[in-house]
C-alpha cells in the first residue's frame, strides 16, 4: 500500500491511504513485541495469583488465557495507534459533521420543509448576526485549521526519527493574537527542532509568526506552539489602576513655587549663566602628580574599586 505521505491521501485508483506502509510495518513489529511481552508477564503474574486458590495447572491455563487477552488488547492498541491518532486529529470535525448530519436527518423526520429552512436560517443567521458569536466561531475554526496545518508541518519537514512517527497534537485554543496549540513530542523530536523551523511553521499556518516554548517544567515532550496572526502591541494599553481610583478626589494644595518667565533664549542673558569648564573624564596620571595631591577615589560600599566605571 504505497503512498505519498503519512496522512490521508488519495492515490487516484479509488483507494485511500490512511497510514503509509513503512509506518504500519514499524507499528506491527512493535505491536508483536508488546503482545508477547504483555502475554508472558501477565500470564506469570495471573498464574501466580490464581495458584493460591486453584490447582496449579488450572491456574497456569487461566494465566495463559488472561495474558493472551491482555496482550492482544495491548498489541491491537499499539498496532492501531497511527489510526487512533488520525481519529483523534479529526475528532472535532467528525463530531461537528456528524452532529449536523444527524440533526438535519432528525429535523427532516419530524418537521416540514418551512420549519427546516427556518431552523437552518436561525442556526446560520444568528451566529452571523451576533458579532461575539461570529468571532468565537471564527477563532475556533482557525484552531481546527491550525491543528491540521501543524500536523502537515511535522509530516513534511519536522520529522527526524527513524520510524517517522508523528507527535500527538493535543488541543488548541484561541488567543488574542491567534492560536495556541499543545503538542506531545515523540522520541526523536525536541523543542529545538521546532525553534529552528518557526519561519516555515508560520508559513504553513498562514500566520505572521510562530513561537515555541516548553509547556511543562518537568517534561520536555510537552511543548506549546503559539501561532500569531495579529499584533496586539500596536494599540494603547490602559492601566487597571485607573479603575481603582474614584473621581472627585479633592485636590491638594500645592506649594506655589515661582514660575519661571524666561522661556525663550533672548530672555536669558549671558551674564546670568556661569560657564563650567568641562572636566576631562580620565584616570588620574600618577606618574605626573603626587599621590597625595590627587583626590581620593570613592569606593563602593562593598569596598570594590570603581575607578573603571566612568
Amino acid at each position: 500500500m504505497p503512498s505519498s505521505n503519512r496522512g490521508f491521501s488519495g492515490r487516484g485508483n479509488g483507494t485511500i491511504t490512511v497510514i503509509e506502509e513503512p509506518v504500519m510495518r514499524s507499528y506491527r513489529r512493535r505491536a508483536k513485541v508488546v503482545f508477547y511481552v504483555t502475554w508472558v508477564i501477565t500470564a506469570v503474574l495471573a498464574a501466580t495469583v490464581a495458584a493460591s486458590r486453584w490447582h496449579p495447572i488450572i491456574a497456569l491455563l487461566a494465566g495463559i488465557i488472561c495474558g493472551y487477552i491482555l496482550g492482544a488488547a495491548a498489541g491491537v492498541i499499539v498496532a492501531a495507534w497511527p489510526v487512533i491518532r488520525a481519529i483523534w486529529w479529526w475528532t472535532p470535525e467528525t463530531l461537528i459533521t456528524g452532529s449536523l448530519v444527524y440533526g438535519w436527518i432528525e429535523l427532516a423526520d419530524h418537521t416540514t420543509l418551512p420549519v427546516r429552512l427556518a431552523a437552518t436560517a436561525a442556526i446560520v443567521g444568528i451566529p452571523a448576526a451576533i458579532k461575539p458569536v461570529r468571532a468565537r466561531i471564527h477563532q475556533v475554526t482557525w484552531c481546527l485549521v491550525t491543528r491540521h496545518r501543524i500536523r502537515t508541518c511535522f509530516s513534511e519537514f519536522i520529522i527526524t526519527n527513524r520510524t517517522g512517527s508523528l507527535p500527538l497534537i493535543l488541543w488548541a485554543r484561541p488567543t488574542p493574537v491567534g492560536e495556541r496549540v499543545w503538542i506531545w513530542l515523540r522520541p526523536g523530536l525536541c523543542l529545538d527542532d521546532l525553534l529552528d523551523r518557526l519561519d516555515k511553521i508560520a508559513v504553513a499556518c498562514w500566520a505572521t509568526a510562530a513561537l515555541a516554548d516548553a509547556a511543562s517544567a518537568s517534561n520536555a515532550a510537552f511543548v506549546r506552539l503559539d501561532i500569531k496572526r495579529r499584533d496586539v502591541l500596536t494599540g494603547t494599553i490602559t492601566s487597571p489602576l485607573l479603575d481603582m481610583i474614584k473621581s472627585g478626589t479633592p485636590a491638594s494644595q500645592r506649594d506655589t513655587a515661582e514660575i519661571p518667565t524666561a522661556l525663550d533664549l533672548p530672555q536669558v542673558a549671558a551674564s546670568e549663566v556661569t560657564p563650567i569648564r568641562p572636566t576631562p573624564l580620565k584616570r588620574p596620571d600618577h606618574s605626573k602628580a603626587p599621590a597625595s595631591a590627587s583626590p581620593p577615589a570613592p569606593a563602593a560600599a562593598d569596598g570594590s574599586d570603581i575607578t573603571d566605571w566612568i
Partner: protein
Amino acid sequence: MTGPEPSTGTIPVGPMLSMYDPIHVGSDEFGQAFYIRLIYKNLLAAGEPGGGKSGLLNTVAAHAALSADSRLVLFDAKDVELGMWDEVADEFVGPDIGRAIITLLRLQKVMENRYAWLRAHRRRKIEPADGLSVITSIFDEIAVFSTVLGTEQEQRQFVALLRDLVARGRAAAMPVVAATQRPSVDIIPKSLRDLFGYRAACRCTSTGSSDIILGDGWSGAGYSATDISPVNPGEALLIAEGGIPQRVKAAYLSDADIRALAGYAAWTRRNQRLTTAPGAAIAVA
C-alpha cells in the same frame, strides 16, 4: 500638605495595593496582562529617546503611589517625567546632583538601619508581615546625573551610591527602577547593570545597544530591540532573571491619568509625609 474635605460625602480610600503584589506593567505579545514582581528585584529600562521608558517608569510609580506599604523617592533629571508624582514622593530630586547625593546618602543610611534591624531579629530580608514600607527609588535619565551634572567626583559618588543601593537594597525592601537611553559603560558600569533583575529594552537603533541592555548574545538569538517599530513607543523586550526576553508593551498613562492617580494617592497619603528635615545629620563624603 492638606486639602479640603471631600465635597462628595465620600472619603477616598487606598485601593489596598501592596508593593509585594505583582505590578501590572502592560500587555505581553499574546494580549495578556503582564505583571512583574518588583520586590527584591530592580528594573532597568533603556532605549532610544521616545521609546517609552518614562511610560514604564510612570506605570511603576503609579502602583507604588497607590500601594499602602510603599514610599517613593524620585530622581528625575528632566524634572517633568516624574514631576507629577512629587506630592506623593518622600523626596523628589530634580537636576541637582548635590541633592541627589544627599538623598542617596539618606537612603543608604536607611538601608543600613534596616539591615541592622534584620540582624537584630535574626532575619535575612524584609517580609510583608514586618510592617515596614517598601521604599521604591525611581531614577529617570541616569546619564545626566552620572555624566553631565556636577563635578567628576560628584558623578562618581552618585554612581557609587546608586550601585550600593541597587546591590544591597533588595533584601531591605528598597527596589530601584532606573531609566537611561543607552546603558553603556560610560553611563552605567556593567557590574552595576547586571545587578538589575529586570531589564527592559525599548526601541534601539543598533543590535549592539540592544545587547548592552539585555545582555550579550540575545540579538544573535533573535531578540533584538531594533525590531521594535519606531512608531510604537512603549513596546519593549523585557528580560527577567535567568529568563528569555519577552515582548511587552507598557501601559500608557496620559498626563490627565497621572494627575488623577497622583492626586488620589496624595489624598490617601496626606498624613504620611515626612516631617523631619532631610539630610540634616548626614555629611556628604
